């Protein structure tokens, strides 16, 4: 169906016509930083079947001045020893240890492609494995070994599409894994909250904004495949998921005829990025607990931005051509 090709994410943010100074500045900052990391790694010995990949705000092209460096050495194939470089060598080459990966162990080491591909579902698909697979598909940015990154990415995509026989239907396996991931994030948020309220404010704010954009920008292209025959689906998803999340959403708002709602949703997201990029306001969010958040004007502002984003995304899903597909595939 020719209409599928009209949903082109390239340059969609600009085509939306909204005032998005912080998003555009973050994109420029990301491009510069990616180039710098590529240069820093240029002379580092790299296994021919490995790729250095950055995740999170790097993949969304939303780098702020205090973004974390969530990196991993992605290795094509099964787990094995002797893959160069060693993680500590790579960490040193990437620099700035103060912004390195968190303590969760999800990033900051090697990830083997076979684990992502062969452990979908069941006990072996740990939270860590699920997170790595989803972030690879939705927000990853290689800075060395690009061809390996692409190959691993395509293997996972093909794994998801393997059983998706029905034309003009979203690929249910991929869709279920994505929805499962989003719900896992939400449940884990409360799990962490019950372990302690450290950084509750910033974690809550990110769940309402960046994490929601990550999920929605995966969900919407999957639902949009209802327009596609089986043979068209792979190329479509590959093109969509290679674009930044905010481009995918901007393209969808335009394509579904709800531009104004898109202007407001992404405008609100732009204001959230301004908060993240401001050391004082970000610092305040980091200091807030569940008990103190309601006293913070910064948190109230972020909550307002998040609500505007949320409402726009609901319009995209429930007030456009996507509604029947959300109804058919989004719940059961």
């Amino acid at each position, binding site marked *: 169906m020719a209409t599928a090709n009209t949903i082109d994410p390239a340059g969609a943010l600009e085509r939306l016509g909204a005032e998005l100074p912080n998003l555009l500045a973050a994109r420029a900052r990301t491009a510069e930083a990616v180039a710098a990391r590529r240069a820093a790694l240029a002379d580092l010995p790299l296994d021919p079947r490995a790729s250095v990949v950055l995740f999170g705000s790097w993949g969304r092209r939303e780098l702020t001045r205090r973004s974390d460096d969530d990196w991993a050495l992605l290795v094509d194939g099964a787990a094995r020893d002797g893959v160069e470089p060693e993680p500590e060598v790579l960490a040193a080459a990437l620099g700035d240890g103060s912004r390195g990966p968190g303590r969760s162990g999800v990033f900051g080491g090697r990830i083997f492609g076979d684990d992502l591909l062969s452990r979908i579902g069941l006990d072996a698909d740990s939270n860590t494995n699920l997170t790595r697979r989803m972030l690879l598909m939705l927000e990853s940015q290689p800075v060395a070994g690009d061809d390996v990154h692409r190959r691993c990415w395509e293997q996972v995509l093909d794994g998801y599409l393997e059983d998706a026989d029905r034309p003009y239907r979203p690929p249910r396996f991929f869709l279920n894994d994505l929805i499962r991931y989003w719900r896992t994030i939400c449940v884990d948020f409360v799990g962490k909250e019950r372990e302690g309220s450290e950084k509750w404010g910033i974690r809550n704010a990110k769940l309402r904004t960046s994490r929601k954009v990550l999920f929605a920008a995966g969900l919407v292209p999957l639902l949009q495949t209802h327009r596609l025959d089986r043979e068209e689906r792979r190329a479509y998803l590959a093109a969509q998921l290679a674009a930044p999340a905010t481009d995918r959403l901007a393209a969808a708002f335009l394509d579904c005829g709800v531009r*104004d709602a898109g202007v*407001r949703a992404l405008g609100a997201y732009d204001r959230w990025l301004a908060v993240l990029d401001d050391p004082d306001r970000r610092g305040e969010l980091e200091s807030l607990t569940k008990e103190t958040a309601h006293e913070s004007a910064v948190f109230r502002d972020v909550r307002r931005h998040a609500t505007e984003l949320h409402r726009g995304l*609901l319009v995209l899903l429930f007030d456009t051509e996507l509604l029947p597909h959300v109804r058919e595939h989004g719940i059961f």
Partner: protein
Amino acid sequence: MVPALLAESGVVSAHHPLGASTGYMSDLRGDWPAMVAEALATSPFAAELAALSESELPGLEAYLAAGPELPFGYLTVHAPVKHLRMPEAELVRRLSRLAPLVDGIVVHPDAMDDPRAYRALGSALVLENMDARKTTGRTVAELAPYFAVLPEAGFCLDVAHVLSIDATMETGERLLDAFAGRLRHLHVSSVDGRCRHVPLTVEHETRFAELLRRCPDVPWILEAPLP
């Protein structure tokens, strides 16, 4: 025969989130729990607590200060626009105390003596477009100077006010073109010949339809009960 303008009825009642303004509940005036209960009967998702006369403000302050458990996902206060006697600085100070308790404070531009004073409300401030009786705040050109000095302010589009100055509703299109990114909610009703908010007519709902279609994501607050 095909009518030139097909009637569009039910667009407003089907919207989500819909909410009620307490401003039209004149028989309950001053009884905030009763007005909130009536607003809840319209919708638990959104509401506007309207202290349109300055004399209503203390009661609203006391009601909100008591910390009532309200279910509304979007709750705003309409600042006084009538019988204003207190110094503007005091009004802004009192509104600023309400701001953390709600999602927005709606202020009429023509009620501001010094717009800069309202910066204290930050992004909680919401400016509303005015009706034909007013001399400012009605159009893009008249609202732009207010937003220039209040860059964090949101926008409340009153579709009935648009109708009072422009039967074609083109002014509303221009307001959305200019301030779409600021839009927080709508005020929806019909107006009579004296610019009083009255229940929505099918004719006016049809006239508003194009404008309403551009605002599916924001709460629509009824300034008169649905017929």
